[in-house]
């Protein structure tokens, strides 16, 4: 079957089941309820004063009675410093456990060491919002027997609620925890800030292990994860590389191209009609996207505008804007540097939120619905404004859906910033390899060679043009880019579908075919 974006979607896929085709960003949401049934959280009981402490992670895992075919989940708040996923999977593999579904909120290059377990049948399926590095290459080449699923941050919460992801064991790293499993990422030697993605795992997993390098006196305060959901607690020497878990402060890029694109994007935002008193704002953590904040900060000061809240993944740059009084509050689902952790701990207007409140489409309203302006990146964008943030120019998985489609659907103004080409690879093109976010959610594309407004947003176009900002037809830009880079050779793939990309409502927006080696 074809979905509304004309992507061919199988009716059914072994290892996943029946698939539902994407029919538009709000086709399911507008009904006002979710048709899928939700599953109840597990029932548990515990005698007073019994201990949850285990000597080693292996002991804790053994107590959970691991079995073949189980689903194990992790969060990715340890970023590039994460060593827990590898340690845990190695223990499971040593115990001879096979056919594991790995449900990590995201997988990064820090997880490259688990690749052998993709190959030996230990792990046979992956659910994640992003996959990078060696893992992304291997799964695109078809290393896993079952198709992987890419979901958004909000979509992951929905999948846990509906039982699409049935977590048997959640292994959750914390930078501080007490003997009962009350845990936080906000302090301790390996502080990493918000634990926003982990909350849902703690609530729904059949068994939950909290792993920390820092046991604190009971009760641990603040509590991102609370004891009533935790089965076991393990003190380990290290949860990973602290320098990569909580590295200093995030700096604005110095790359001239990113800065130029960011400067143009800030001009677009300034004249969009959305930059007004009390606006809410979200930017990504890197490159041009974060750099937009630098220029918006300047404009806000110059025009004496104060915003309401910053949402999502938070950097020290956002914290600086909060401290300067440019925004009233921060709602933090994921923190990107050490400075954010201390703010989270000390500033009552810097608030940790779980992923469901952040972005799950199926509740009484997630916070992305209240966004005024979001600035997002892209690996590719097509002339219908559909965005690929998951597969690279060789067809390998090398990115993350993350909150891209969640925020794009919610924000009044969704700005995509990216260069029109990288090296000799076109970024703005007629057709993207994989669609993650539908063009209907994107308002404007800002590149170094042109600003393109979605034709559906005529008012925005008029606002920009009346401010003297030149707007270019995206078809014209794509042709210009092709004139510079030449026509890109199509990625060679087989018929086999190795992965699917779920839209936030659970429908399939695209599939990923096996890349020919």
């Amino acid at each position, binding site marked *: 079957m074809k979905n509304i974006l004309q992507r061919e979607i199988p009716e059914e896929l072994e290892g996943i089941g029946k698939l539902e085709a994407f029919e538009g960003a709000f086709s399911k949401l507008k009904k006002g309820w979710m048709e899928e049934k939700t599953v109840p959280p597990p029932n548990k009981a515990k005698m007073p004063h019994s201990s949850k402490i285990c000597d080693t992670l292996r002991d804790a895992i053994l107590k959970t009675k691991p079995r073949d075919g189980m689903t194990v989940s992790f969060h990715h708040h340890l970023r590039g410093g994460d060593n827990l996923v590898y340690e845990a999977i190695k223990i499971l593999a040593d115990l001879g456990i096979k056919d594991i579904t790995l449900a990590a909120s995201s997988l990064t290059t820090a997880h490259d060491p688990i690749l052998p377990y993709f190959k030996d049948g230990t792990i046979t399926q992956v659910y994640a919002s992003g996959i990078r590095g060696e893992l992304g290459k291997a799964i695109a080449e078809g290393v896993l027997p079952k198709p992987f699923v890419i979901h958004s941050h909000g979509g992951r919460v929905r999948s846990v609620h509906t039982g699409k992801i049935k977590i048997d064991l959640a292994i959750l790293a914390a930078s501080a925890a007490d003997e009962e499993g009350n845990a936080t990422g906000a302090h301790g030697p390996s502080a990493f800030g918000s634990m926003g993605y982990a909350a849902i795992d703690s609530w729904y997993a059949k068994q939950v292990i909290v792993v920390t390098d820092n046991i604190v006196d009971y009760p641990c305060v603040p509590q991102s994860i609370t004891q009533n959901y935790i089965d076991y607690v393990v003190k380990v020497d290290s949860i990973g590389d602290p320098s990569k878990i909580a590295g200093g402060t995030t700096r604005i890029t*110095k790359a*001239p*191209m990113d*800065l*130029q694109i960011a*400067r143009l994007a800030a001009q677009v935002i300034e004249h969009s009609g959305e930059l007004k008193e009390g606006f809410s704002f979200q930017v990504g953590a890197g490159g041009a996207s974060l750099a937009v904040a630098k220029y918006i900060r300047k404009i806000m000061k110059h025009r004496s505008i104060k915003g309401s809240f910053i949402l999502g993944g938070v950097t020290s740059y956002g914290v600086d804007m909060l401290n300067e009084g440019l925004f009233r509050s921060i709602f933090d689902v994921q923190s990107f540097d050490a400075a954010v952790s201390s703010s989270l701990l000390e500033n009552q207007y810097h608030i940790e939120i779980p992923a469901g409140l952040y972005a799950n489409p199926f509740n009484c309203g997630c916070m992305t619905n209240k966004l005024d302006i979001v600035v997002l990146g892209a690996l590719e964008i097509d002339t219908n404004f559909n965005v690929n943030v998951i597969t690279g120019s060789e067809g390998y998985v090398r990115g993350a859906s993350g909150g891209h489609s969640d925020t794009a659907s919610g924000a009044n103004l969704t700005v995509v910033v990216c260069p029109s080409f990288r*090296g000799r690879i076109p970024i703005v093109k007629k057709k993207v390899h994989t669609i993650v976010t539908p063009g209907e959610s994107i308002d404007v594309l800002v590149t*170094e*060679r042109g600003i393109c407004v979605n034709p559906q947003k005529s008012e925005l176009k008029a606002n920009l043009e009346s401010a003297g900002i030149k707007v270019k037809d995206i078809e014209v830009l794509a042709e210009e880019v092709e004139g*510079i880079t030449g026509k890109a050779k199509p990625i060679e793939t087989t018929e086999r579908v190795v992965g699917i990309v779920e839209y936030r409502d659970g429908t399939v927006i695209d599939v990923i075919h096996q890349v020919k080696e």
Partner: protein
Amino acid sequence: MLYIPGNNPAMLQQGSVYGADGVLLDLEDAVALNQKDAARILVAHMLKYISYEGCEVTVRVNHIDTPFGLEDLKQIVPLQPDALRLPKVETVDEIKRILELIEQIEDEHNLPHNQMNVHVMIETALGVQNVYDIARYSPRIDAISIGGQDLAADMQLVKANDGVGIDYARKQVVMAAKACKIDVFDTVFVDVENEEGLREEAEYIKKLGFTGKAIINPRQIEVVNEVFTPTELEIRKAAKIVKAFERNKAEGIGVFAVDGKMVDAPVVQRALRVLEMADIDVESL
């Protein structure tokens, strides 16, 4: 004006997108000796195939007395960029000799002598002494610029970053340009990490009368543009002065006051210059 090393294809390709008024494709100091030929070939190729839409394109060639200067002219002049930048010009005889060579090459290619402009760089003490005579030598010379690094070296200055040593030269070069009614560009600011230092220097040289400033990193464009672009307040004030002038002129009044300050012809002239820089049509006021 953004300097781009002539042997860097990626930077040459992207040169026009950063918002600079002009790009300076450099075959001289930004290119290592063993890369000179490669840079010349690359720049020539880029001039043929890359569109620098909205940007004035200038090529800085090597000095004619180096082993590369003549070949640079032979390859670049036929492609007629907007302007050719000639480094380390010291005497009238020298500029005469170079212009004759340029015209000879243009004749060989049936090209006119009035299409491509020439920028002269003053980078030595002798050049500073002769700058007026050099600048007025030919109508093709439509801009001069000061090269601070080479000048400081020629003056044997040990510490040159504060600009004190080249201050006289800056003023001399500005005065020569103004006397010839041509543009004058300041030297580069080498500390790319020091945004405030760049802003201070740009503000200073703007006060001296420079038309613009050469830059070596796209990150410097925004600061220089901010300094050289009139502020909203300046534009409003200029518009007020020009409107008052038009009103008073009709009544035969030459000197009048705006906001308590005397306005006469030179003040009006400066106000008109502000509006011109802001690209505002006086008729539309």
